[in-house]
């Protein structure tokens, strides 16, 4: 079984984002990590290969600093990595999909491609779908339960209100995953050391026959989300407080 896991190196979710210029941020201040949803894909791939044999290849299109995320993925158990180097943090999902497709094809077709359901930096929610369209594979996303039966997978996703949709999908396929699928393991120290020696194939987009970066969606402005300045504290006894809260919500805010 050959499994690819597409990952992205993103600012730690606990990081404060300091803006710089019209549409960028101070990335030197940020700790970068594996996109949290991608970790479920790595764990699932490693578990499947432990059971069935084969190999797990992690792949990213990203800047030089994305090496850290690839090493972390290999510490979890991925066998090797492909790093398509780019200069930009924000890539158009159509471009990313083209790059990933070319690199995956060059390496040899997999049985499964895992991705996170989306990245927590651009929150674009499109790369798994566009990658599947490029490869002509079927795709499912936001999967939190998965069973592989030969050349088919049965995948479950939540569709709101606690309802769950069960989909059957033929392999090879792109499977976007989310929390609930598994509990990603914490790499042990020897695994972290071993990961430093695992091979990373560093390539450029021109190696893949792609001439230049293109972008059909451009980030033109990045601004801090408006923050509230602090709560108006409601005073008095518990009864008085809840009465006042109800009055505020009904009369002042008109939301009840």
């Amino acid at each position: 079984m050959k499994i690819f896991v597409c990952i992205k190196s993103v600012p730690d979710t606990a990081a404060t984002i300091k803006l710089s210029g019209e549409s960028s941020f101070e990335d030197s201040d940020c700790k970068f990590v594996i996109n949290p949803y991608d970790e479920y894909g790595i764990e699932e791939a490693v578990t499947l290969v432990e059971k069935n044999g084969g190999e797990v290849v992690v792949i990213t299109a990203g800047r030089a600093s994305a090496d850290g995320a690839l090493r972390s993925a290999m510490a979890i158990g991925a066998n090797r990595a492909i790093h398509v180097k780019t200069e930009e943090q924000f890539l158009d999902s159509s471009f990313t999909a083209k790059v990933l497709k070319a690199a995956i094809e060059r390496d040899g077709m997999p049985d499964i491609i895992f991705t996170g359901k989306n990245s927590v930096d651009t929150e674009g929610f499109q790369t798994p779908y566009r990658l599947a369209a490029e490869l002509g594979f079927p795709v499912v996303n936001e999967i939190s339960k998965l069973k592989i039966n030969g050349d088919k997978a049965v995948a479950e996703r939540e569709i709101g209100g606690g309802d769950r949709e069960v989909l059957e999908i033929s392999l090879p396929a792109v499977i976007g995953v989310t929390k609930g699928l598994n509990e990603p393991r914490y790499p042990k120290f020897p695994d972290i050391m071993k990961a430093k020696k695992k091979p990373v194939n560093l390539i450029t987009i021109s190696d893949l026959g792609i001439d230049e970066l293109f972008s059909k969606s451009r980030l033109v402005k990045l601004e801090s989300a408006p923050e509230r300045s602090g709560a108006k504290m409601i005073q008095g006894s518990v009864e008085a407080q809840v009465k006042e809260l109800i009055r505020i919500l009904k009369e002042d805010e008109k939301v009840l």
Partner: protein
Amino acid sequence: MSRTGVLIEISDSGRIKDTICGVLTAARGRDGNNEVYAMVIHTGQSDQMDELQSAASIDQMALYGVGKLIVITADGDLANSPDIQSASIVAAAKEYQFNSLLGLASASGRDLFARAAAAFNEPMASDCISVDLEGKSAVKSHFSGKTFATVQLDCTTMIATIRPNAVEPIKVSDSQIAAKDASYSIEIINFKSSATSDGRIKKVEVKKGSSSKLDLTEAPIIITAGRAIKDAANFKMIEECAEVLGAAIGASRAAVDAGFAPHSIQVGQTGKTVSPKVYIACGISGAIQHFAGMKTSKVIVGINTDPDAPIFSKCDYGILGDIFEVIPALTKALK
């Protein structure tokens, strides 16, 4: 004149979801003059379609500016193939020459529109807070809600999904209805797409959850409990309050990780993103990751025993107190 197609989502009974009205409002464009085509996927349940075409539903769509309703059917198994659904949406968008294609960033909307954008080979803006159809740009959350990004799309047809409750629903004015001579009548078009599928992806089942519960991401009011709830059984107190409020119930990551609540109701970074009119956070400290999932709520209320809890520095109204006293009192007062 510019033309917008909107994918309508309906409940099991065929009623239009309330959250669609905000999308229809956005679909009318800057001056409110766009032609709006509502589209619905006919999954084979004719009673659903009857309800959708009932006078009440037609009135509701007309009030929010819909001029035509396209009922989509297909050669293939439309009900069980997300690929046939998205291909049919693209086919309708081409047939009726939409300048923009909008939907709701719900679980099914997110999925179908991403499929459609990939099939259409057009860029898309997902989970937008606002859209500028004329300028082909959108504002959406970046870095888990810490920043807002304006994204410019280089496209022929602008494709976007809108975060539920993010755009305030506004009815069209009487004068606009009169000017269009629409008088609440909507033309119904049956559109049959030729899309079929090779069967490589197929919906085999929907497992129903507890059907009485409101969907978190689309609820107008949400009440959420944090670790301070101490036990799964104590959610009963939250449920009682939610019932009188007409609210959906959420939980913080701490409460989910402690096993007090399922992940399906987690709000925040690795859970759901919500944007209700009222968000009541009970015993939640207010971590940056939690705010990522609810900061675009209209009014946020924090209830906590710790005066230094970060929630109080970032919400609208605060009650310093024990949730086990405040929530039952709130439930009682609401009754």
